[in-house]
Structure formats: C-alpha cells, structure tokens
C-alpha cells in the first residue's frame, strides 16, 4: 500500500506540474526538486518508491541509491515506468499500467473542468451477475483478421470495410451485439450488414470471404454506387457512413447519437473577421471527416509534406477578396475580411483524406492523380488546430495551450493506399491490432511493420483518440418516452378496471 500510494503521488505531481508549466496563464515558478546525489535540478526525476530519495537517471544516481539502501523500486515520474534493482531493468505489469492511467486521467479530469460535466473514469469491475455470466461464456480471440475477396473491382469496398473492422469503437459496438441483425425489422439494412460482417470476421474460420450481401445492400440503397466499375473509396466511405447512420436505431437528423455520429462526428468553426470594424462572424458546421488539399491555393505543390503541414494550411487565416464578404455591422459595402477555419469539436475517430484526385475543368482532359509523398505520424496531437487553442494565444502570439495533451493525442490505426491512375488503380490498406501492423490486399493478409505502413503513401488514414472522455450518462430520449408510455398505459388500465368494478357494483345494487 505504501508503494502504490507513493507511485500515485509521484505521477499525479508530475502531471500537474507539466500542466502548470505549459499553461500560459499561470506563469508561476515551477516546483523543481534537486537530485539527492549531485544537487542539480532534476529535469527528468526518478523517485525511489520506498523513501524520499529523488535522483538523476544519468550518472546512475538513482540506481546507486537503490543498491546502497537495498530499496528495490524507483519510478520515472513522467512515464510511470518502474525500475527494479533486483532485475536490473524496467518491469512491466498490467497493474502498474492501470494505476498510471487512472492517476493521469484523474489529474486530466480536474484540469478540464472547463469542458463541462464529465463522467469520472472508473475501471470496469464486473458485478456479481456479470461475473456469473462471464464464467460460463466461451472466449474468442479478439484479433479479427480475415481477407476479403475481390468481387470484381471491389477493392475500394474491401479497404473501407477493413478500416471499419479495425476501428475500435465500431468493433466494440457490433461485438457487444448493439445491433442484432436477427432482431432488426429494417429491410436493406446496412447496419445489419455491419453486424453480419463482424460475425464473419470473428468466426472460427479465417479463410477469405466475399462481402456479397454488403455490396448488394449498398447498391440497393445508393444506386450511384452500383455497377462493377471502380469506385472512389472515399465516396464509398461517406455513403456507407450515411447508410449505417440511417438504419441505426435512434438516429435523428439533428444532434444524432448513433454509433456513426458518436464515432466520427466533429464540428468545424469558421471565423470571419471584418478588417474594418473587427466584428467576428462564426459559423459552425458538422463534419464526419477532414479532406486535405495537397496544393496551395495558387496550384503549386506544397513545400512541406506532412500531415501536420496540411492541417496548418487548412487552418491558416486567408484573406477574402473585397467582393466575397460584406460585414453586417459596418453598413458600408463589402470590404476585406479574414477567414479562419478551426476544429471546434474533435471526434473520437479522425478520418483524413488527402485530395489526390483533382478534377480539372479546363486544360487537360483527364483528371490527374497527385502522387506526392505525404509523411504521416504514428500519433498526432490535434491541439494546435482546435478553436480553443486559437482563442487562447499566449505571449508573442504563439498558439496557447488548451489543456492537457492527453485530451488531444490520437493514434494511427489504419491507412488506405491507392496505386495506379484514377480509372485503373488498385486499393490496399494497412491496419493495426494493438501493437502489430498488417497489410491487406483483398484476400491476402500479411504481417507488416510500422515503417512499411508509414512509407506507403496514404490516400486516407484513420486515427483514434487515445483517451476517451464521457459525458455523464443520460437516458436516451426514446427510452424515456417509452417508459412514459408504459406508465400511462398502466394508469389507463387501472382506470378501466375501476370503471368496470363500479359498473358491476351498480348492477348488483340495482338487483337488490
């Protein structure tokens, strides 16, 4: 208990300290312990878990302390990695990982009160009933990997389906049986097709299978997708999202809470500032994904070629010409204004598309494909592109720090590649399960590496937020409505019954 408590204290201290140092509004002195061996200020403290010693890793100050005092464990305050002097190496255990996670999340929750109410993190512990069910349940391996047969130029379908299969939020939803295709009453239900897809993927066989009914349903619902010609994977992606949303129970047209919107929906904010009077007009638009240009406005290829540079270009202020804007505050005619896009709400899964296919209306007849290599990172911090960050600029106009990094870290889980030209090309994809990367080429699935994936020149890529934050649980409106109906029906039943009893009583009295 002593070691666990010390561990939590150290981790929480470091998390709060980092937040304090990075937040521009709070420029106070940052607490700075010194090494108990060399007296230098510690930039990366290692703390003994059995006494108050703190020291440098370099020069073996901390490891010497452990040897000298026969203490066993010390921890790196930043990463939570625990070093054991008996093993003479860092040791890893799920308990330590869970402890680190819950401590860091607790600090993060305290620091993000500005977000509004948030459900505090609790690890899941099965109840008595749940434990009984779990004891008798058959376990299946949670790695779902199956190739998908090409049904005739359907690689565009296969790569998108693989990105759904490896999407943790979609996977968890369908594996929890949240849309049971045997109970669903819709016909041509794409949501049922998703349920069937996951059933196939997690079945005991792992020979490739053909998603024929998924394809057929897609054709029935969206005629423009039908036919055996090659389609654009991104177009199919958006079509599929809309179809699944439409057939999900409880989906609505405004503020929908279906699995698609919960997973992919974010918001853009567009701020237009009038140069004359400074009035800012803001518009908020919903989005399911982000499409990034590879060329600057003038048509030249970009200088920088990373995901971050594309996002910077996307969110940089641009001047609107005199004719494009008229301010509602200054009564004068149109003048110059500056428009800036930013991300107001980040979804749990971020989908990026690089606009590699340009449709030229004049000049060349055939649309060109832009093959420029774009470097994507294995994880990305989205803070600099958010509305909140842009509104909290620090001194020197540098972008402000809008909250703990943990809120903005995203990890790559799938990449879609396209080789060849626009009309005759082939789609393949990479996807990650936990730490391992695999390459998917229709029915052929092979183990791969991170560097192969990152070097593959992405057309689309998908990132998932590292830590999800939850609103406090609110009963869905359709359940509330149903409960009200049940209460009302029961009341009516009682009234009817009472009325009937009264009739019987009256009849009896009349007879007497």
């Amino acid at each position, binding site marked *: 208990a002593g070691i666990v408590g010390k561990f939590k204290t150290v981790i929480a201290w470091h998390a709060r300290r980092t937040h304090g140092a*990075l937040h521009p509004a709070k420029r106070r002195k*940052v607490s700075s312990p010194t090494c108990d061996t060399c007296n230098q200020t510690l930039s990366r403290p290692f703390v003994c878990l059995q006494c108050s010693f703190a020291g440098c890793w370099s020069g073996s100050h901390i490891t010497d302390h452990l040897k000298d005092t026969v203490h066993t464990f010390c921890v790196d305050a930043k990463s939570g990695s625990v070093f054991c002097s008996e093993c003479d190496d860092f040791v890893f255990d799920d308990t330590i990982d869970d402890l680190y996670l819950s401590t860091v999340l607790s600090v993060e929750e305290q620091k993000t009160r500005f977000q509004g109410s948030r459900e505090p993190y609790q690890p899941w512990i099965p109840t008595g009933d749940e434990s009984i069910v779990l004891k008798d349940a058959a376990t299946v391996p949670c790695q779902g990997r199956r190739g998908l047969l090409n049904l005739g130029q359907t690689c565009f379908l296969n790569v998108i389906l693989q990105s759904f299969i490896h999407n943790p939020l979609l996977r968890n939803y369908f594996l929890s049986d949240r849309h049971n295709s045997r109970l669903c009453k819709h016909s041509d239900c794409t949501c049922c097709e998703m349920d069937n897809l996951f059933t196939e993927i997690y079945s005991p066989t792992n020979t490739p299978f053909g998603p024929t009914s998924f394809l057929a349903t897609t054709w029935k619902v969206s005629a423009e997708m039908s036919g055996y010609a090659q389609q654009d994977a991104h177009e199919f992606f958006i079509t599929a999202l809309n179809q699944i949303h439409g057939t999900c129970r409880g989906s609505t047209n405004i503020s929908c809470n279906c699995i698609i919107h919960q997973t992919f929906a974010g918001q853009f904010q567009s701020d237009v500032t009038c140069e004359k009077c400074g009035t800012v007009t803001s518009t908020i638009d919903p989005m399911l994904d982000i499409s990034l240009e590879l060329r600057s406005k003038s048509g030249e290829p970009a200088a920088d070629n990373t995901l971050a540079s594309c996002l910077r270009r996307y969110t940089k202020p641009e001047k609107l010409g005199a004719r494009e804007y008229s301010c509602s505050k200054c009564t004068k005619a149109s003048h110059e204004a500056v428009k800036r896009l930013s991300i107001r709400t980040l979804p749990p899964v971020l989908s990026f598309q690089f606009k590699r296919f340009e449709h030229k209306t004049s000049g060349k007849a055939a649309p060109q494909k832009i093959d420029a290599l774009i470097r994507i990172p*294995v994880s990305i*911090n989205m803070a600099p592109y958010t509305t909140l960050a842009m509104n909290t600029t620090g001194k020197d106009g540098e972008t402000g720090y809008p909250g703990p990094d943990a809120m903005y870290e995203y990890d790559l889980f799938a990449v879609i590649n396209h080789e060849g030209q626009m009309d005759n090309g082939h789609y393949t994809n990479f996807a990650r399960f936990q730490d391992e990367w695999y390459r998917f080429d229709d029915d052929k699935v092979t183990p791969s*590496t*991170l560097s192969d994936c990152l070097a593959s020149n992405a057309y689309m890529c998908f990132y998932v937020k590292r830590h999800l934050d939850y609103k406090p649980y609110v009963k869905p409106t359709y359940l509330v409505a149903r409960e009200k109906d049940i209460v009302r029906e029961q009341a009516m039943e009682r009234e009817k019954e009472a009325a009937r009893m009264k009739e019987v009583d009256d009849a009896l009295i009349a007879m007497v």
Partner: protein
Amino acid sequence: MSKLTSEVEVLHVEVHRRMIENGEWDRILHLLSSKLSESGWADDLLHRAKENSRSMDPLSLQMILQELLSHAQTSVPLSVKREITTLIKQFVREQFEK
C-alpha cells in the same frame, strides 16, 4: 584552464535550474517533441526499437536504449536542432541581461 571549465560548469547548473523553474524547459521540450514527431524521427526510433526487440534475448530496456542512443542523437534533423538551439541561446542571453 580548470578554473574556466568549473566556472562554465557552475553557470551551466545555474542556467539549467532557472530554465526548469521558469517552465521554459517544459515549453521547449514540448516544442521539440512535436517537431521530432512531425519529422518522423520518433516513429523511426519506435520502429527500430520494435524490430530490435523482436529478436532480443533476454529482452532488456537498457539494451534497447544502448543500441539506439547514438543513432537517435545523430539522426535529429538539422533544422530542428538549429531551431531549438536558437531558443536555448535566446533564453541564456535573456538570463545574462537580467
């Protein structure tokens, strides 16, 4: 000669302390992390560490660190190095002016 070196050492410890207390250390480190991530340096190290550890027996973090340290130091992109060095120099200069 040794007097000069020890003077420099004392200064170094002092500047180091001030930078951490000021919070500038954390801010520069944050910027450095994001630049190294964007340049692919961090992902390259992650990939190498993973592939090295696949065939390592016994698996040891210290061994992984040892194998990667020199490559990690030399493969930092020049532009990132320059930018961060400039920021550090700026801070040191400001401290001397005070």
